[in-house]
């Protein structure tokens, strides 16, 4: 029996049971589609995070107080911690030549009020250089004035949400707001930006760093953001920053300097594992689909027992019977796999249309894996029914038993 004849015979057998065949096919295509779509989702999440970081530029150093193992996970603070001060910032700026921009950062949360309106808002304290370092833009007015670090001017820049919540349609520029018990004057409004690295930049108030440290009574900065000239210099700059701070902190290395690469690498590992987990979950549905194929083939064999008997009487040896049913099973799973790929890719492209920030492309290993698995499932789960058919006694089979 030639390969073409085998395919033709299997095709006609499958077509003879349209509903049953198409339901099995659907099961398999959902399995394969799930693998493709879910891994695309995982990869999309990874791409999203990567883009978020890359948007900040790849030559950013982040200094935080306390020693951590630089896994990029939440810092585990150990040892005695000296406050990281504005003087430290000055020292870094003076002594590390590769620093292009530097922005100290202090963070707190306070009630911000204008007139009768109040809102609980994240307050960032920084310097004018925060604007380029965090790639922020000013909507109206201007950003923090460039004055000496230790003179905390009572001025504030507010986010878009804060503006609309507190001022409505009123012009906020020059208006006084209360942050905690202090009074500030609004000098600018940020352009809308939305979520950026876990912080809604539309719902913040930015004040000079000295003011916020006094306001929240913080002896130490939360972070120092340092932008170096070029990506190649980042490791050298990191070492120099560490040396400067170690020297200033009585020889103890009590700060952590993260590079963008380290943070990104950690996220990549986490999200890569997430993708794998999603693929695993989808693979379960694939194997369920395989069992569905086995079920349908078993039904088919028992229903077509007289036909098997006939084929044997007409001179088909057992291995030919085996091949006939195996080809049917593999044909079902292959067709299901193809349809699944189509569904998966379609779903992924719809996803990335709906959420342009999420680059949901299924990884090639998942696509190939799903194809191989679906074919394998057809073969594997087709063997048992096919062997059952091949072993039927021709006389009993002809009698339908």
């Amino acid at each position, binding site marked *: 029996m030639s390969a073409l004849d085998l395919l033709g015979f299997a095709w006609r*057998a499958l077509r003879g049971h349209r509903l049953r065949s198409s339901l099995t096919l659907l099961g398999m295509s959902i399995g394969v589609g799930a693998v493709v779509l879910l891994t695309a989702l995982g990869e999309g999440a990874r791409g999203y995070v990567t883009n978020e970081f890359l948007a900040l530029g790849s030559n950013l150093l982040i200094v935080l107080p306390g020693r951590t193992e630089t896994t990029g996970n939440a810092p585990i603070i150990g040892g005695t911690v000296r406050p990281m001060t504005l003087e430290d910032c000055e020292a870094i700026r003076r002594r590390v030549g590769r620093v292009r921009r530097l922005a100290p950062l202090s963070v707190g949360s306070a009630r911000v009020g204008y007139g009768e309106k109040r809102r609980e808002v994240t307050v960032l304290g920084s310097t004018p250089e925060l604007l380029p370092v965090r790639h922020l833009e000013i909507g109206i007015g201007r950003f923090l004035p460039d004055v000496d670090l230790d003179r905390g001017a009572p001025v504030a820049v507010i986010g878009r949400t804060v503006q609309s919540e507190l001022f409505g349609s009123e012009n906020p520029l020059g208006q006084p707001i209360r942050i905690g018990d202090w009074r500030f004057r609004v000098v600018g409004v940020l352009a809308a930006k939305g979520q950026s690295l876990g912080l809604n930049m539309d719902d913040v108030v930015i004040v000079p760093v000295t003011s916020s440290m006094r306001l929240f009574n913080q002896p130490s900065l939360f972070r120092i953001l340092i932008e170096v000239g070029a990506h190649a210099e980042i490791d050298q700059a990191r070492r120099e920053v560490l040396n400067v701070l170690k020297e200033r902190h009585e020889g103890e290395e009590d700060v952590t300097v993260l590079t963008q690469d380290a943070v990104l690498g950690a996220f990549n590992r986490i999200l890569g594992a997430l993708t794998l987990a999603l693929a695993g979950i989808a693979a379960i549905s694939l194997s369920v689909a395989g069992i569905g194929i086995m079920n349908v083939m078993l039904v088919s064999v028992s229903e077509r027992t007289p036909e098997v008997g*006939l084929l044997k*009487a007409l*001179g088909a*040896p*057992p291995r030919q019977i085996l091949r006939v049913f195996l080809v049917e099973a593999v044909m079902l799973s292959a067709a299901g796999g193809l349809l699944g790929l189509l569904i998966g890719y379609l779903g992924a492209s719809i996803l990335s249309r709906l959420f342009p920030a999420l680059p949901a492309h299924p990884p090639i290993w998942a696509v190939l894996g799903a194809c191989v698995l679906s074919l394998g499932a057809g073969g594997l789960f087709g063997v048992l029914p096919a062997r059952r058919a091949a072993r039927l006694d021709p006389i009993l089979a*002809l009698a339908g038993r």
Partner: protein
Amino acid sequence: MIELRDLTRHFQVGDQTVRALQDVSLTITDGDYLALMGPSGSGKSTLLHILGCLDRPTSGSYMLDGREVGSLPESDLAAVRSHKIGFVFQFFHLVPRLTAAENVELPMVLAGVRPAERRTRVTRALSAVGLTDRAAHRPDQLSGGQRQRVAIARATVMGPSILLADEPTGNLDRASGSEIIELLERMNREGLTLVVVTHDPEVGGRARHILKLVDGRIATDGRPR
């Protein structure tokens, strides 16, 4: 040429041995026309299955065209069935999703005959049974007699040396039944060895020889009249 020598077939049912065939010796010459008759359970179906290489004897010898086939492995038996034996069944056993032509083609598909050769042989076989105009019909679009004709075309398309018919008229009305018998007899006259298993004395009476089985043994072996 078929030669059976001291052939027995025993079945083990639980702890009992059922002797379906005992010491059957028989010669069927080429071009013969034989009716296998006997009551239910007499062993005539078992004998037909062994003749058709669907079953193997427990002991004894079965020579088909000078070759011992009684002890061949299953895959070799399949090859013998493919090339030497044609079956016609009481319930036709056509594949319902295939057309008449495709049903006739099936044994050649299984044997790996080339498509061009298959087409000419299908045409010839269908015209021999008078169904040229029904080639594209599926079994459910054919009458009982027509279905049995398709089955006969299928049984003869590989050019077998022996045609085994198991109650070929058992599922047909009188008129179609006698048409089928006449068709089989015509093929016998053209040289095909014909063995018919039947209950019907009228059908059996037309054969050149009648073999009557009782309790697994040959009771009479001779001419009907």
